[in-house]
């Protein structure tokens, strides 16, 4: 991924992850922490919640475009993927 994740995307992802896992400490998650395995421990349920929320909020369907879900490697890779693939967001309330 050439572009980095926009800071507001990173912040929103932290919030989604904290809610999906019930772990408030993920609000301080570093961009380099792996989402699978020891880091966040994303599983099929929390991963599905995350992908649905990403699709809803950013209009990016990661699962449809990324067979191996490489975008889910870390918070940083996911934010970069979203920033690179998201259509322009409508103004709030618009």
């Amino acid at each position, binding site marked *: 991924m050439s572009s980095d994740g926009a800071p507001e995307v990173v912040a929103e992802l932290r919030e989604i992850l904290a809610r999906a896992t*019930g772990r408030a400490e993920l609000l301080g998650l570093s961009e380099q922490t792996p989402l699978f395995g020891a880091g966040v421990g*994303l*599983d*099929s349920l929390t991963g*599905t919640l995350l992908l649905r929320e990403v699709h809803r909020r950013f209009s990016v369907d990661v699962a449809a475009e990324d*067979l*191996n879900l490489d975008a889910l490697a870390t918070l940083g890779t996911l934010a970069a993927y979203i920033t690179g693939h998201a259509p322009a967001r409508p103004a709030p309330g618009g």
Partner: protein
Amino acid sequence: MIVKCVVWDLDNTLLSGVYLESEAQPPPPDPALVAAAAQLRDRGIIHAIAFVDDDPYERAEVSFAVPEVLVLSPEDMADAVGWPELSPAVVTAEARRRGEMYAERRRREQEARAFAGSRDEFLRYCGTRVTIARAAETDVPRLHELSVRTHQFNTGGEPVAERELRRMVGSAEDQVTTVRLSDRFGDDGLVGGCVTRAGQDGTWTVTLLMMSCRAMGRGVIEALLAWLAGTAARGGATRLAVPCLVSPRNVPLRLALTAAGFRADPGVPAGQRRAVFSRSLSGPLPEVPGWVTSSVAGRVTEP
């Protein structure tokens, strides 16, 4: 596809006469309903709905707007209860207990919402038990049911006939494995199964993998994948492969495979629906989640 939901118009069917009379002509389909139908279609639920109405105009309208729905008149319905879509050949123990399981799930979800700790801590508190065993003949009806009913965790996407499952259970080449789940809230019974085959090239192939979405988020698919990798490695395999029909519906399965270190073959063109996910069996293998007590019942032999 088995019908899971019957939408029954009351007028002149269950009630004699018309329950609510509208003065207006039937309006064109509500855009919200069309959008809801599109969502049901995306999630693959639409095939599981039957619509019963005494009014031929409304039947035609629903058939036209949502062709996947099974549309019946009340007279058809009397006959249709004998059709395979509406009556599975065998009612499994899991199907019979479905109502109780929903009640158990509601209690589990209520306690989860009230629970102070993290999701992991809650799952630990649940005392989740996963039991893996070699399939017996008596498991065949439930395995068939899983092949029909599961979509989010299903590598095949096609029902597997009982005859075929029975053949595999009895075959020396295929190993059919069952997964059962229980916790402090109740017993979900047989929630998953898989079929594995050992190849000559050191690769074990999971030719079918399916799990009820009821077991989702409870560590079951993770426990099964960890057990498969461990068993294959002990059986001398160097690689574990899971061919998969990729669809928008089985994204949870792909998440579980990715989390367990499986990767799709490089060079699968975007949009290709069949992919083989595989992983090496050297180095650290996927682990059973800490909250799961996983046990192997009886003799589970390598194929």
